[in-house]
């Protein structure tokens, strides 16, 4: 089995984003590996460690500026065998490069460069654009089966058994035969730390470089962003002195108690 994992370099989850004239300020802001992509990498590496899956290699793919190589090195330090970097300076947070183009670039990689991919693992969504579209769109373009929001992935004959989390509960999907696209949700696993020996090894692993415009894909945004603004500031809480004051406020100010 050959696995392709999508990894995205996004604004770090802990950063308090600020909105400037051109949307969210990205200059000098800390960037990290998207948490859901990290979960996807972990899922891929665990499959590789599972002898029954017979994984031949795990390839990480990232689309973005040259710093994406750091993100790819992290993915390789976690266990990916090699990586592909598609270089573009277009903003990936929905302002310029959008899901449709990303899905099509993935499709091109699978059809033209890495021709024998059996499983694509991606995070359920990126925490900058929050679209959650690349996985499903890619499956659509490739005409492959898909299972999104995976909380559990098990091998099942020639395919997979995937449990997915929905608002109504857990849904189990049987993917009869690979290849397929699976997007990963929070409870799928807890990603490992990159160990020192693997970090050192990752420095020597290969990253294939391409330019985004060398693929026959339209990179222009299909949707126009009209406005980006911060949500209204939350009012600060107050401290009360004792339980009676708390009850009084809940009753008379918040109207939550009879």
């Amino acid at each position: 089995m050959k696995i392709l994992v999508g990894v995205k370099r996004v604004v770090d989850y802990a950063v308090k984003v600020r909105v400037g004239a051109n949307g969210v300020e990205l200059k000098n802001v800390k960037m990290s590996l998207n948490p859901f992509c990290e979960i996807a990498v972990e899922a891929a590496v665990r499959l590789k460690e599972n002898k029954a899956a017979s994984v031949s290699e795990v390839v990480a793919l990232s689309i973005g500026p040259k710093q994406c190589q750091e993100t790819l090195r992290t993915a390789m330090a976690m266990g990916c065998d090699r990586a592909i970097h598609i270089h573009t300076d277009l903003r990936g947070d929905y302002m310029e490069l959008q899901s449709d183009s990303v899905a099509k670039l993935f499709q091109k990689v699978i059809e033209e460069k890495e021709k024998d991919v059996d499983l694509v693992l991606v995070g359920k969504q990126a925490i900058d654009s929050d679209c959650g579209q690349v996985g499903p769109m890619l499956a659509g373009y490739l005409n492959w089966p898909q299972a999104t929001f995976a909380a559990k992935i098990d091998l099942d004959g020639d395919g997979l058994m995937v449990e997915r989390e929905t608002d109504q509960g857990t849904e189990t999907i049987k993917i009869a035969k690979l290849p397929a696209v699976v997007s990963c949700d929070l409870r799928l696993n807890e990603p490992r730390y990159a160990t020192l020996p693997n970090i050192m090894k990752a420095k020597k692993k290969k990253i294939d470089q391409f330019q985004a415009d060398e693929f026959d894909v339209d990179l222009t945004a299909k949707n126009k962003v009209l406005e980006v603004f911060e949500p209204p500031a939350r009012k600060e809480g107050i401290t009360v002195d004792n339980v009676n004051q708390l009850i009084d406020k809940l009753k008379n100010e918040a109207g939550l108690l009879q």
Partner: protein
Amino acid sequence: MLSRCKPRTLFKSAHAYRAFSSLLRSPITKDYAELVRRAPASIVVDDSKDLEKYNSDWTGQYKGNSRIVCRPQSTEEVASILEYCSREKIGIVPQAGNTGVVGGSIPINDEVILSVERLNEIHSFDDINGIIQCGAGCVLQTLQAKVANWNHLVPIDLGSKGTCMIGGNVATNAGGQYYYRFGSIHANIIGLEVVLPNGTILDLMSTNRKDNTGYDLKHLFVGAEGTLGVITKVALNCPRLPSARNVAFLACNSFESVCQTLSLAKEKLGEVLAAFEFMDKQVLDQVASEKTIPLTDGKKNHNFCILVETLGSDREHDMEKLESFLEQATDAGHVVDGILAQDTRQVSIWEIRESCNPIIKSKGYNYKYDISLPLSEYYSIVEEMRERLLPFKGDIVVANWGHVIDGNLHLNVITPGKFEVDIQIKNSIEPFIFEYVVAKGGSISAEHGLGQCKNNYLGKYAKSKAAVAVMRSLKDSFDPNGILNPQKFLPSSNSKN
């Protein structure tokens, strides 16, 4: 005119309290009424148990009997309280977050507790010069969050950040994990507002980093543990928030390798090295019962684990330095295993280190020691202590962790499952540990301070007679009636030191 009245000592309990200076008296009903008038948010109770959270410390070792906690809402109210108590010769215990471990914020008898918890306003932040001005009652974590919004950080960080308050940090010259990188509070204090025992408001607030005009009085109050005045406002230097942070968790087989790794870290990481903490197997075994240790030697914990943090302004640059350091440390065999935490997980690595104290506390009685030693002697005291305690029956663990980069060791002897102090064990540890530390030129209290726990050792194990005499004269000059934290910090009146 000196009063020739017989001192009124109204201690009602049969408890054997440490005697106060004969000048001080217990507060009575009229005093409580007057204090509430001066600071309306004060709480008076009939039973001191109702003020349990103010009257006891989190280690469970110290219990006071105060029946009032004054909670002034302004500097003027603080001044009013001190003026009254000074005149009436009533003892006061200033209290901030009450997270200390030497009983410095706990009343010994029924002194009035003066809490700064309501002085919690952030007055200003100058984001060009990086100076915050705020009330003494601001919780450290709140300050850290506020200041991060302006891309700066508070130069101290400790495990108790969610509860401790900046006034207490300053009064105790708190250390913490960034001491090496950002310096002590002395190095970062820009200004203070202090109320003297007689009620005088001493405004030493400033926004000038450089000011050589007169004696630098604010430094007297830093680390004075509330014995010279009550800090009401703080102006503190805040460095810029580094954009690149890396946390590595490494394993070593011997303490010697820990030292060699430290040396290599200082050499290779240079100016981006921010913290270097260690934990030994004994403390890791205890922590492992509640947290997952990310690095293990098969099913056991490693002999030593180190947490290394770098903070810098250029991610690529820091990563290059870090990788070079890690490669060399591994090639030389100092480090046998390690992990590098991705951003989302750096906090959980720190949690392992910061949970040492609370987890150890929950296991049994802790005989806690906080010592400074030269690195060459750092772990030998642990080995000697274990030898000394061998003859004792039952489970005794000597668990150790600390800011090894500062030569600061937190040595904790625990009796798992037993929560009462065993005098024989205590006598086996003390004064041996203090004598050992003194003989090696170390400090018996690296960062925790003296409080009511180690004050009587000041003359014997820490400072010369001449030094203690100067300290006493300073105390007498600032606080002639001895109302602030009586019987703490300096050796108590019935001690021979």
